[in-house]
C-alpha cells in the first residue's frame, strides 16, 4: 500500500515488522501479535472493518414499517429502520446537529426519529424533517437537503441476513459472498418459508480477540474431544476422538470457509437431523449437489468472512432428549484489541413444526450461549489464549496451524471452492488468516 509521511511502508508496523510476515498460509504460520496488538487492531478497523461487508441484523428482527434496531458497524453506532415502502435503510445513529445518538433502545418502533437533545427530527428514510426554531436560521445556513442522516454506504441482504459497509468502493454483496451463497442457501433457503430469528439474540462481552472466535468456527472440529471433554465424560458426545473426523473442509471464495461432518450411519443423522416432515421441502428447494451434502451430513460449521459464523449441529443438552439439531448464526464484533461482543442468534425454519421449534431452542440454549454447557468452556479457552498471546516474549514464537495441510484437494466434492477430505484440519483457518492479511495489505483486496 501507499507510503506514509514517516517514510516506512504502510505495511510496516511501528517496529518495522511487515504485515506480510505476520501470517503465512504456505508455512502454516500465524503470529501471536494478531490477537493482542493495539496497532494491528487500529489497522484492522481502518483497512478491514471500515471497508468490508459485515452482518448487522436479520430481516425478521424488524418486520414492520417503523421497526428499528440499533447496532454497531465498525465501531460506529448505526440504526436500521424499515420504511413505509418496506425497505430497510441504515444510518449512522447520530443527529447532524450535535451528534446525539438518536435511537437509544436496542429495538423499537417509531414514526420518525426525533433527537432528544434539541428536537431535530428525521423521516424513516433519513430526511431531515424539522429543526427547532427554524425561523432563527437564515436559509443559507440551514440547507435541510444536506442535513439528512448519514447513510451506511452500502446496505443489502442475502436470505434475510442484512449486511452493510462504510465503503462505496467494495463490490456488491452478492459478489462479495461469491460461491459461499451455494452453501448459505443450504442453511437459510432450504425450506419454502426460509429461516427466521427465534426470539432475541444472546449478547455477551468477552475479553478475547474476535479472531479467536472466528478461528474456532472456520473449521476447528478437532477441539471438541478436549475442550468439550466434560460432555464426552457425560456420555453426550462420542468417546472416540476420531468419531467426528469424517467429512470435508471447504474453502469458498473471498475467505469464506466451512466444514461438513458425517454422523453415524443412521437415517436419524441424515439431513442434519432436521424433522423428516421438512425433507420434501429440502428436495424442492435445494439443487442435487446441495441436497447430496445435506443428506450426507450431520453437522456443518463455518464463517462468512470476516466475523459472521454459523453452526448447524445436533446436540444433547440433557440426558433424556435425543441429539437435536439447531442452527445458530453468531457475530464476533470487535470492541477493542482484546474485547469482543458476541451476538448469537437461533434461526428456525418458518415452516418447522412447533414441537421441533421448542426442542431446537432447548438444545441450543442448554449447550450454547454464555450459559451453554459447551460454550462456557470455549470462552474460558479464548480468553486465556488472548491473555497469554499478549506477551512480548510469547510473541517471539508463532502459533501452529499445520494439521492436514499436506493433503490434496478432493476434486470429487460436490460443492464449489476447494475441498479437502476429512473434517479435521487447519486449511480453513489458514484461508481465513490469509484473507485477513489481504485486507490489511492490499488496496483492493476484492480484485483477484
Amino acid at each position, binding site marked *: 500500500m501507499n507510503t506514509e509521511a514517516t517514510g516506512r511502508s504502510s505495511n510496516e508496523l511501528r517496529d518495522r515488522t511487515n504485515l506480510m510476515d505476520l501470517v503465512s498460509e504456505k508455512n502454516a504460520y500465524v503470529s501471536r501479535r494478531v490477537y493482542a496488538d493495539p496497532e494491528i487492531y487500529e489497522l484492522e478497523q481502518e483497512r478491514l472493518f471500515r471497508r468490508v461487508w459485515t452482518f448487522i441484523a436479520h430481516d425478521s428482527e424488524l418486520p414492520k414499517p417503523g421497526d428499528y434496531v440499533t447496532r454497531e458497524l465498525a465501531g460506529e453506532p448505526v440504526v436500521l429502520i424499515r420504511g413505509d415502502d418496506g425497505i430497510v435503510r441504515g444510518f449512522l445513529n447520530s443527529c447532524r446537529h450535535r451528534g446525539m445518538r438518536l435511537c437509544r433502545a*436496542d429495538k423499537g418502533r417509531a414514526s420518525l426519529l426525533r433527537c432528544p437533545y434539541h428536537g431535530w427530527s428525521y423521516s424513516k428514510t433519513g430526511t431531515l424533517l424539522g429543526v427547532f426554531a427554524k425561523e432563527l436560521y437564515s436559509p443559507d445556513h440551514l440547507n435541510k437537503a444536506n442535513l439528512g442522516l448519514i447513510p451506511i454506504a452500502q446496505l443489502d441482504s442475502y436470505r434475510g441476513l442484512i449486511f452493510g459497509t462504510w465503503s462505496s468502493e467494495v463490490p456488491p454483496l452478492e459478489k462479495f459472498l461469491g460461491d459461499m451463497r451455494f452453501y448459505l442457501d443450504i442453511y437459510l433457503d432450504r425450506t419454502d418459508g426460509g429461516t427466521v430469528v427465534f426470539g432475541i*439474540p444472546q449478547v455477551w462481552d468477552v475479553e478475547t480477540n474476535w479472531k479467536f472466535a472466528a478461528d474456532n468456527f472456520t473449521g476447528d472440529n478437532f477441539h471438541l474431544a478436549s*475442550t468439550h471433554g466434560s460432555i464426552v465424560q457425560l456420555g453426550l458426545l462420542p468417546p472416540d476422538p476420531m468419531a467426528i473426523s469424517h467429512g470435508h473442509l471447504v474453502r469458498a471464495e473471498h475467505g469464506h470457509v466451512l466444514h461438513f461432518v458425517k454422523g453415524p450411519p443412521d437415517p436419524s443423522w441424515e439431513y442434519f437431523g432436521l424433522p423428516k416432515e421438512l425433507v420434501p421441502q429440502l428436495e424442492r428447494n435445494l439443487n442435487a449437489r446441495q441436497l447430496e451434502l445435506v443428506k450426507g451430513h450431520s453437522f456443518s460449521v463455518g464463517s462468512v468472512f470476516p466475523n459472521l459464523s454459523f453452526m448447524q449441529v445436533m446436540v444433547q443438552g440433557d440426558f433424556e432428549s435425543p441429539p437435536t439439531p439447531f442452527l445458530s448464526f453468531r457475530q464476533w464484533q470487535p470492541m477493542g484489541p482484546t474485547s469482543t461482543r458476541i451476538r448469537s442468534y437461533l434461526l428456525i425454519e418458518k415452516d418447522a413444526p412447533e414441537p421441533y421449534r421448542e426442542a431446537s431452542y432447548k438444545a441450543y440454549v442448554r449447550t450454547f450461549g454464555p450459559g451453554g454447557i459447551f460454550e462456557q468452556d470455549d470462552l474460558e479457552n479464548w480468553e486465556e489464549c488472548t491473555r497469554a498471546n499478549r506477551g512480548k516474549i510469547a510473541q517471539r514464537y508463532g502459533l501452529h496451524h499445520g494439521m492436514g495441510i499436506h493433503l490434496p484437494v478432493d476434486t470429487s466434492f460436490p460443492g464449489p471452492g476447494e475441498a479437502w477430505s476429512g473434517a479435521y484440519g487447519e486449511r480453513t483457518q489458514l484461508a481465513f488468516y490469509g484473507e485477513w492479511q489481504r485486507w490489511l495489505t492490499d488496496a483492493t483486496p476484492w480484485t483477484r
Partner: protein
Amino acid sequence: MKESITRVPTGSAEYSELVQWLYDEAYLLDSGEFEQWFNLMTEDISYEMPARISVMPKEGSGFAEHSGLFSENHSSLMARVKRLQTEQAWAEQPRSRTRHLITNVVVDRMSSGDFDVRSAFLITRARADRVSDTFTGERHDILRRAGSSWKLARRLILLDQTVIKSHNLSFFF
C-alpha cells in the same frame, strides 16, 4: 386462571422458614455443594432465565418471552451438576468463587399450597485474578412442601443486565 394468593407477613414463622431455606440454598451454592443443591429441586423443576433487551417504556420490560440464557429441566440441571464433577469442565476448573446475596424477600401463599417467593439477588463471581463479575436481578421461585422441608419447583431469573458482562455463566443463579 390466576391463582388466589395470600401474602405471608414478614416475621411470621412461615416467612422465616422460607427465608431460611433461601439462605441455606445460597450457602450450598457458594460452598460448591452442587449435588446437595440439586436435591432441593422437584422432578418437574423449571429453571429459566429469559434474554433481555433495552427498550422504551411503552414496549415493556424488554424480556423475550421465548428466548433466554437458561431453559432447564431436571435432566439438564443434572447434566450441569454432573459436568462439574468431570475432570474437564474447564470453565469451573479452577473453580469460581460465588456469593449469592438474597434480599427483599416477598412471600405469597398460592391456593395450590405452594409458595410464590420473590427475592432480589446480588451475585458476585470471582475467578482467578480477574475483576469480579457482578449480577443483579430478581428471582421468582415456586417452593413446594416436601416432608419437613421445601423443594424448588420453578425459578424464573430476571437479570437486570441486557448484555452479559462476563465470558460465561458457568454457575447457578
